[in-house]
């Protein structure tokens, strides 16, 4: 069948334009060129627009970066809009689809960025980075992986690196009289000890699903190395059938069956930070979570972090596994793209923001002050004076020593494949499918 392609705008005009046109008959037809005054770009004429995520302390750092830029550039300002995490993911997609995207599109790179690129919605920044080598060379090289689609750079890496870390509650470990695990065997041996003491071994916000995924990311890596998931990402046929994958899935279900996770984990969400609360209130002994939770645990957990009760380590090796124990997974950075629908003026403002505003020395200091590691080479020099110096050095060490810093699976894959993956992971943790079923379900959607 010969696919025909009616333009997206034709459809949007059909679906929205007619009723609107009927109601506002006086308004003339609007051409496809993005014009100011409420046209594409979602904002004013010579002002660039920028949507970013809420939740302190990160929100404040983002807001102040924009304020500093606006002060320094009175002629080309940026208007920021703050949105909530989950709402943002849907809203940005809809806005881009409708040609109403902000000038600067904040995101996680990877599979989602690829869909923007395929739809021709974001600017190719490869030549701009070639002209502005200094901007590129300042940043961690590993952060560019998720910004690069088919050899071209479509986004400016920004903000912080967020490896997934194994946190533990030192008070609970002392109370039960055990030592932090150094291998998968240790973890399985610790589980019955904590359960006997009436403490859940691991906290988990399972309803969010990507929280469960972090466990598989590490098990796959430690048992089979980063190549196992890379094969999935590359769309190799039956890539999930790798023996290491089956081993990892089985080990994971063994942990679930041994009551390794807190009772009721599948109804706990990570958005409410309830999983972190379980760790710092001592209801759970350990938690596998993103580096960003350090900041929220220090603000919400009373003296838990400041009193030195929070322990952290990289995920331990699995006996006989091929993966390098220095490897890590998580978010190698956050990403800023420029909308193709923006005016030339807006694009200029955005590029100036990338060159002079993003990760300025002040912003680097602010991130470090909040317990996060900015993706800037030599950022560790700013750590000495920070109150969370130990944690910052630990994260910087993980990120700079890791042979492989894999991007979170759900961000690396296309949104379509990620949804199937998350769905099957939830069922795997629910023990409603076997590892074998997981493998065949996932093989069926490889490359989609």
């Amino acid at each position, binding site marked *: 069948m010969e696919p025909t392609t009616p333009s997206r705008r034709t459809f949007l005009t059909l679906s929205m334009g007619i009723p609107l046109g009927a109601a506002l008959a006086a308004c003339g037809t609007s051409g496809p060129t993005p014009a100011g005054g409420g046209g594409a770009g979602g904002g004013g004429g010579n002002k660039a627009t920028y949507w970013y995520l809420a939740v302190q302390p990160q929100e404040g750092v983002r807001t102040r970066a924009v304020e500093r830029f606006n002060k320094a550039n009175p002629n080309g300002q940026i208007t920021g809009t703050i949105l909530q995490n989950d709402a943002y993911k849907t809203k940005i997609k809809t806005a881009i689809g409708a040609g109403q995207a902000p000038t600067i599109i904040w995101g996680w790179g990877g599979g989602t960025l690829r869909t923007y690129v395929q739809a021709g919605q974001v600017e190719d920044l490869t030549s701009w980075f070639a002209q502005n080598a200094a901007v590129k060379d300042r940043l961690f090289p590993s952060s560019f992986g998720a910004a690069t689609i088919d050899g071209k750079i479509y986004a400016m890496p920004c903000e912080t690196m967020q490896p997934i870390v194994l946190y533990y509650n030192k008070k609970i470990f002392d109370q039960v009289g055990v030592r932090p695990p150094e291998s998968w065997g240790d973890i399985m041996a610790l589980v019955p000890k904590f359960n006997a003491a009436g403490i859940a071994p691991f906290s988990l916000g*399972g309803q969010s699903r990507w929280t469960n995924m972090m466990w598989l990311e590490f098990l796959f890596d430690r048992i089979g190395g980063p190549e196992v998931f890379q094969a999935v990402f590359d769309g190799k046929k039956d890539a999930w059938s790798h023996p290491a994958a089956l081993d990892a899935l089985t080990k994971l279900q063994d942990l679930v069956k041994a009551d390794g996770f807190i009772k009721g984990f599948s109804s706990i969400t990570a958005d409410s930070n309830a999983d972190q609360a379980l760790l710092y209130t001592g209801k759970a002994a350990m938690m596998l979570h993103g580096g960003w939770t350090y900041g929220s645990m220090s603000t919400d957990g009373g003296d838990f972090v400041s009193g030195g009760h929070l322990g952290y380590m990289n995920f331990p090796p699995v006996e006989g596994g091929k993966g390098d124990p220095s490897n890590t997974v998580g978010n190698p950075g956050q990403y800023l793209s420029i909308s193709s629908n923006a005016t030339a003026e807006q694009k200029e403002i955005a590029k100036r923001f990338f060159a002079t505003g993003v990760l300025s020395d002040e912003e680097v200091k602010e991130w470090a002050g909040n317990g996060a590691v900015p993706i800037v080479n030599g950022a560790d020099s700013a750590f000495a004076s920070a109150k969370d110096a130990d944690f910052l050095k630990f994260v910087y060490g993980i990120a700079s020593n890791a042979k492989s810093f894999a991007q979170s699976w759900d961000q690396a894959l296309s949104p379509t494949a990620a949804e199937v993956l998350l769905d099957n992971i939830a069922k795997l943790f629910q023990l409603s499918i076997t590892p074998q079923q997981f493998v065949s379900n996932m093989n069926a959607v490889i490359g989609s």
Partner: protein
Amino acid sequence: MSAFATPARRGTPPAATREARGGVLPWLAVPALAIFVAFGVIPLVGVLFLSFTSWDGLGDIQMSGLTSWWAVLGDPGLLHALWVTLLVMAASWAVQTPISILIGVFLAGHQRYRALLAVLYFIPLLLSSAAVAIAYKALLDPNFGLGAGLHIGLLTQDWLGEPFLAFSVVIFVVSWQFIPFHSLIYQGGVRQIPRSMYEAAELDGAGRVRKFFSITLPQLKYTIITSSTLMVVGSLTFFDLIFVLTAGGPGDATRVLALDMYKRGFQANLMGPASAIAVILVLVGLALALLLRRLGGGDAGASQMEGA
């Protein structure tokens, strides 16, 4: 006796209104019709069109014939979602209807304290579904919720983590939220029943229970149909509450059709299959509404006033 209780036959309408009926009245329907076409019919046509395309919400819309339909119809997830939807529909109807009728009958009395209770019962209806869901989620949290706080073992279940419990919680919360509304409908229905029928029954020596089953319930027939239609068709579109409460989980135990549609469309970027599900939802809803009308409206000519 019955003269003042039965509604008097309405007198012939004045000539002026009768003339207006021919000329102006149809035009009064135009604004409503325009809004219905703009926000009901046109989007529906759009969705129907989208269901024959592939679209990720970002790029160009590709005509793809029946691809989306085959993808949806061939997916075991659809059958499961349909099944869950039907279960939610049946269970929430079975729970809500008897309770709503009883509360409605109770509130139909004119005693002062009942008026006060009516106001209290009405409160859940004032809250938005999302707020209700968030509140229940917090109360039912196995580690920080009501049960854990009060140290009541019975309440400390994994309410939203066990498939059966999660489903029951959804039904409970839905009922908690919508029973007030249906009670209100039944209250109105009961108050329409002519006093004379009860008086006649009392003369014949009927007790409370007998009166309820022989007069109240049969007289409420059309009210029951109205309320059931609202419940059944409404339960097809439960989305916000379930989305916030369980997100369709654990696994896919509470993934109803509307949620499946959202996840496919807005999380997995598959607008084509999501539109196909939307069309299925519309068809199922229409079929159910028609069926319920058939069930109730078969003998529209039959008297409702037997014995009055």
